[in-house]
């Protein structure tokens, strides 16, 4: 087995990978930017090396420096986590060229799936259904796109071939508005990815986003670990994931067909290691290949909760050259798991990112609750990186038990210093569409409102009024004690026993 692994990432995922290494008896190397000197991954690792300034492109995106550090400290392998260098074929190739094992698929598999248009053509050739669009047509000029559009039919979506994170995407309702939307999509794709190439895809309305976790070894064994339902999204960013998908709950044959197609898509690019096949599923239960993420997924713990597997440990084992530890028929799914991404975003203020120092954090615990985080009291949420504070995953024997448990855990979770989207999750757990599992990818943006859904929650107007009054009174007394008339005793002592800080 590997003796030492360098983790080319930060935050909760770096901590997650260090944990797997610890349990496997592998030494860990952290790399960090100036902003992350005190971060948990730096403190948990056996060794830690500074990469450079806080900006990602001067630190976590410096593949050359990372490989240099890995060689100097004699690491055997590099785990890229997700984001940053995880889906850069050139980085994977550079690792291999330097004699380091890249814990992920081969560079050629990353490249094949990285260009979304090529990926669609590749899997379509292997017999996998894709959302109808311009697959197999290569890069098209504006006039060609306009000519092709009516064949696909409206509404359709313009997407960037190098896309991700919703950048360079435009919904098109008719031909008239299309030329302008092509221009703006190209501009955005060019500035985000340095590649203005775009393709067209039919817009599947009322669709759900359901993905399958793939695990493959270097001997051609490919299995799937079931699905994750990821339709609770805002601006193409996932907020809640769950497994099993409530949509597939009563349709085992559809699940099996999708799983088989996911395996087929992975085989089409000679895939090894962990990966995720994303599908769109329409109201009539037709499913289409969307794309493949050739890396560990943020929401992987949902699958770990229902299968009992450690996906990161399995990644390391197959990267070392072992066979998969399970056969498809050995995989058993038990209960239901839900993941809420806790972001430093204010749901009462247009989900604006909130940065600042976390002064207190009290994560929930108890049965069936898992928190993956890289933050602690004193941590500075900086504008340099993504707003993910933690992932909270709960498991229950049934979906309804998981929802009740999630509500309980969300209420226990206290974070002071930055605004978080915990109230969003609390509100979501009370909405009828979520409870009944009848939601699609447009739910958050088109139907959900913090105000409407909050109607279902019990009102505590009186307690809120009382709490605010007592706090206001305490602060006024506090002020008058400092600035007030000396010698004159306040008529009323504080109702507050202040706990001394720094104890």
């Amino acid at each position: 087995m590997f003796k030492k692994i360098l983790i080319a990432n930060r935050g909760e995922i770096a901590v997650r990978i260090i944990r797997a290494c610890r349990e496997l008896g592998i030494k860990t190397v952290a790399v960090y930017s100036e902003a992350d000197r005190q971060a948990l991954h730096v403190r948990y690792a056996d060794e830690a090396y500074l990469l450079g300034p806080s900006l990602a492109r001067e630190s976590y995106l410096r593949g050359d420096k990372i490989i240099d550090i890995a060689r100097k400290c004699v690491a055997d392998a590099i785990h890229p986590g997700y984001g940053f260098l995880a889906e850069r074929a050139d980085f994977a190739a550079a690792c291999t060229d330097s004699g380091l094992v890249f814990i992920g698929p081969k560079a050629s598999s990353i490249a094949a799936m990285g260009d979304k248009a090529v990926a669609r053509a590749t899997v379509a050739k292997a017999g996998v259904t894709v959302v109808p669009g311009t697959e197999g047509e290569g890069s098209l000029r504006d006039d060609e796109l306009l000519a092709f559009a009516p064949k696909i039919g409206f509404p359709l979506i313009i997407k960037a071939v190098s896309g991700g994170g919703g950048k360079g995407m435009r919904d098109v309702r008719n031909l008239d508005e299309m030329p302008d939307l092509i221009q703006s999509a190209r501009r955005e794709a060019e500035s985000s990815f340095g590649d203005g190439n775009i393709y067209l895809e039919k817009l599947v309305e009322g669709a759900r986003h359901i993905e399958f976790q793939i695990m493959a070894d270097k001997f051609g064994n490919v299995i799937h670990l079931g699905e994750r339902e990821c339709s609770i999204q805002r601006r193409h960013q996932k907020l809640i994931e769950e497994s099993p998908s409530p949509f597939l709950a009563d349709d085992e044959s559809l699940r099996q067909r999708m799983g088989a197609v996911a395996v087929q898509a992975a085989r089409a690019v000679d895939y090894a290691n962990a990966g995720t096949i994303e599908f769109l599923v329409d109201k009539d239960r037709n499913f289409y290949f969307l794309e493949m993420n050739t890396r560990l997924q943020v929401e992987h713990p949902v699958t770990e909760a229902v299968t009992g597997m450690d996906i990161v440990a399995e990644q390391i084992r197959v990267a070392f050259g072992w066979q998969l530890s399970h056969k498809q028929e050995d995989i058993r799914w038990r209960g239901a798991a839900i993941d809420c991404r806790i972001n430093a975003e204010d749901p009462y203020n247009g989900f604006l990112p909130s940065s600042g120092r976390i002064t207190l954090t009290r994560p929930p615990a108890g049965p069936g609750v898992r928190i993956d985080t890289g933050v602690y009291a004193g941590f500075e949420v900086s504008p340099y990186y993504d707003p993910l504070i933690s992932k909270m995953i709960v498991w229950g024997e049934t979906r309804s038990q998981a929802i009740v448990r999630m509500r309980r855990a969300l209420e226990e979770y206290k974070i002071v210093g930055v605004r978080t989207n915990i109230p969003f999750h609390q509100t979501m757990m009370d909405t009828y569409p979520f409870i009944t599992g009848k939601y699609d990818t447009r739910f958050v943006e088109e139907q959900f409102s913090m105000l409407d859904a909050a109607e279902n929650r019990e009102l505590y107007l009186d307690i809120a009024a009382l709490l605010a009054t007592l706090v206001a009174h305490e602060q006024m007394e506090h002020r008058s004690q400092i600035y007030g008339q000396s010698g004159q005793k306040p008529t009323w002592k504080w109702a507050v026993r202040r706990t001394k800080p720094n104890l």
Partner: protein
Amino acid sequence: MKYIAEVDGLEFPVEILDEHHIRFGKETLEVDLTAVSGQPLYSLIVNGESFEGYVYPDERSWQVLLLGRSYSVNIEDEREKRLRTSDAGLACPGREFTLKAPMPGLAIAVPVTEGQQVEKGQILVILESMKMQNELRAPYAGTVVRLRVKSGESVQQKQTLLNLVASISSTH
């Protein structure tokens, strides 16, 4: 000390009796409040019922986050309340009011123009936020000066939308 707390249009009179007792409306309650680790997270026990919530001061009100809901609470002590009520509607001539966006949103209609005379309660701006249309009204009669928002424009929270100067004749 007596306070009036207003939340969602409802008024709650609170009288602080001593360290652990308050009069809340007609009831006398035993209360115990403590800040958790010196942070703006408070544990409150009221007659044996335990609550935990965040309390943050805002520009003019207090924001309370309690059991998954956010509340905006306005607090006045009795003296302030008296001052305000004797002042209500009786805008001092020339007094200027700045209308700020209470939340981020889209100004879907601005039915006034600069220099226009408006009545008390007249709609100045309709702000759409979280799919709700909020009618922002004139607190007293006056003249719109410095209109800084256009219909169709997105606004940030607390962004100044317009200024209103109270009319000389304005009594109500």
